[in-house]
């Protein structure tokens, strides 16, 4: 069933022999999968990608591609397409020249080259621009050329390091869809790096969340969002309320948390929490119901500290459980248009929406 194309086995990397930037990384990528490495700046995403591409050597561990040990295979013999953040299009060649380069390296004849260049340009909707220089293209067009160049020699694996980072929001969202479609159409395996979580969630089959050189969680976007494995993932993916408390009661699915001000909250267990241990309640703002209605398991009255208007919804900053940074989100389905700063509102949420995670000091 499982047919991994790339396997990282205990990969460690240190540039200077002192600071380890990637720690014993295990990662297995299925054929045809779209895997995103997501994480804050400096978490080791690019380093991991560069080791796979062959531009950096691992300090320890092994990487295999299609069962072949890659550690000592030079980059030019790996057959992996790479899209660079700044595209790295050869400025002295035309667009067609750039696309022709990998085909020439493979010794492909003129007529087939021309055919494949044309097909690649059509795929990224740049048909008539073959004779332009990269400098004569817009950022979005350059991005498409970079994409076409990484795909034109039909690699089994394509790596992309923040390929959309330089584009504006609208174009970025458009290109996300296009890349996704190309991936589906070609069935190529993609390893994608970004620090934009919405990009990671919309595009990927699976996302590996990096922090400090370690994979915190490797899972599908919905699992990441709904069931973050730890507090870092919970806070990194989407917006999140974090309330710290102590476990005072539990059964095998739920527990009771007591916050410092004495508030008691019931939440789903998302880790092994003994009674008396410290825990973090993780709760998405959109799961909080604002206003009257069927009271849920957890129902409180909170003071409105701030209203932030977004058009299709409004965010409320509330005082609750001893914290004045509790966020809730409402789209006014329940009426209540005349909310005022300083007023009190009823808020509630189901015990299934709050997740109790083990507390870790480093956060």
């Amino acid at each position: 069933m499982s047919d991994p194309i790339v396997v990282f086995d205990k990969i460690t990397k240190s540039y200077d022999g002192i600071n380890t930037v990637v720690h014993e990384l295990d990662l297995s990528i299925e054929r045809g999968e779209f895997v995103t490495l997501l994480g804050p700046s400096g978490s080791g995403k690019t380093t991991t990608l560069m080791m796979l591409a062959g531009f950096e050597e691992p300090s320890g561990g092994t990487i295999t591609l299609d069962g072949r040990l890659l550690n000592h295979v030079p980059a030019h013999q790996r057959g992996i397409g790479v899209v660079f953040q700044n595209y790295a299009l050869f400025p002295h060649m035309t667009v067609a020249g750039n696309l022709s380069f990998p085909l020439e390296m493979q010794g492909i004849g003129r007529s087939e080259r021309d055919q494949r260049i044309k097909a690649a340009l059509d795929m990224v909707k740049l048909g008539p621009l073959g004779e332009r220089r990269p400098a004569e293209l817009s950022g979005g067009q350059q991005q498409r050329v970079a994409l076409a160049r990484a795909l034109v020699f039909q690699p089994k694996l394509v790596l992309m390091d923040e390929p959309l980072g330089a584009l504006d929001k609208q174009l970025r969202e458009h290109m996300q869809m296009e890349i996704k479609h190309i991936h589906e159409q070609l069935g190529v395996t993609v390893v994608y790096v970004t620090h934009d979580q919405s990009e990671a969630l919309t595009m990927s089959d699976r996302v590996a969340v990096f922090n400090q050189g370690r994979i915190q969680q490797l899972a599908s976007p919905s699992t990441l969002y709904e069931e973050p494995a730890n507090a870092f993932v919970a806070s990194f993916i989407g917006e999140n309320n974090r309330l710290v408390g102590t476990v005072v009661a539990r059964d095998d699915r739920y527990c009771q948390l007591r916050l410092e001000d004495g508030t008691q909250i019931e939440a789903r267990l998302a880790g092994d929490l003994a009674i008396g241990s410290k825990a973090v309640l993780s709760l998405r703002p959109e799961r909080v119901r604002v206003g009257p209605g069927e009271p849920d398991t957890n129902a409180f009255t909170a003071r409105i500290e701030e209203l932030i208007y977004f058009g299709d919804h409004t965010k409320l900053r509330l005082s609750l459980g001893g914290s004045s940074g509790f966020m809730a989100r409402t789209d006014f389905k329940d009426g209540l248009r005349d909310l005022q700063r300083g007023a009190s509102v009823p808020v509630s949420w189901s015990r299934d929406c709050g997740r109790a995670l083990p507390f870790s000091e480093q956060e």
Partner: protein
Amino acid sequence: MMTRRNLLAAALIAPLLLLVLVSFIVPLGATLYRAVEDAEVPSILPQTTALLKQWDGKDLPSEQVYHTLIHELREAQEQQKAGPVLNRLNFEETGLRSLLLQGLRASQQFNGSTKQHLIALNPRWADPHVWDLIKRSTGPWTPLYFLRSVDLKLGPGGVVVPTADEEAVFIKLFIRTFEISVVVTLICAVLAYPIAYTLSILPQVWTNIGIMLVLIPFWTSILVRTTAWFIILQREGPINALLVSLKLVDQPVTMIFTRFAVYLAMVHVLLPFAILPLYSVMRGIKPDYMRAAASLGAPGWRRFLRIYLPLSMPGVAAGALMVFMLSVGFYITPALVGGSGDQMISYFIAFFTNTSVNWGIAAALAALLMGMTGILVAIAWLLVPGFRSGGVRV
């Protein structure tokens, strides 16, 4: 419409324009003017000049012309002003000076017709071509200096003909000048490339030290550095002492006053001019280009040939241009360490300016040197990829 911004820009550029005008266009104009101006004979022999303007150029001139020429020349000689005229006429054709001096000396004893006395003294006075030559020197303009700069002159009847072999030196000189410059430029480019590349990939600390090592000689006067080579390359100098003591040679090797010495010293002086632009271009070549090429399947040598070399070409071009332009005008270095067969055109420009005081030929040689250099650079501009951006990558 002239906006405030435009005005401001114009005001900022104006001093620069003035500088270019004063330091470049004016001297250039003066040089060109010198090269074609012909003022000696008309200013010192005005009456002869006026009379010769009316001469038909076929038959011998009249007695009056002979007489006026000798008379004005003698007056000039008494006022110590005959030198430039005699030089000018002798440059028109070698031998005219002695012919005139002979006539001047003999003219003390002339009584009666100056024309007949002169013809009796030297039959050349009966040759209309002599008068043709004198008439040609009466200005106000002359092509003589430019023609001579390319080993041509005006023969009888105003036809352009090659100069006599023993006077035909300038084309050889130009060829030698460009040959030395091209060789020096090639050596500099070949040496500078790996040096600049190494500097561009070293860690910053080492790069700074390396750049210092390049710049220290660069800041030292050319004269000092050339003199150092002059001493080092002597027959009894340190290199020969070393070679002999190591028994690598029996006899000291002749190095000073050879072409080898000229190449060595010029390359040493000019190398930084090739390294610095190359280094700055190479520094700007992002490693991602080479990584991209590798990921696309190019092994090291193909990455170099297809990507790195073309991307560094503007630096090669800028450095080579600089070295070539400076080489073409080199003077001190070949003069000190080269032999008589290694002197470049600037040596002769200096010689004609200072020693033989023939500013016309000096100016013509200088203008021609500039013109030819310009043409060669224009050809390079058209042929060498990357040259056009002048070292600036887009």
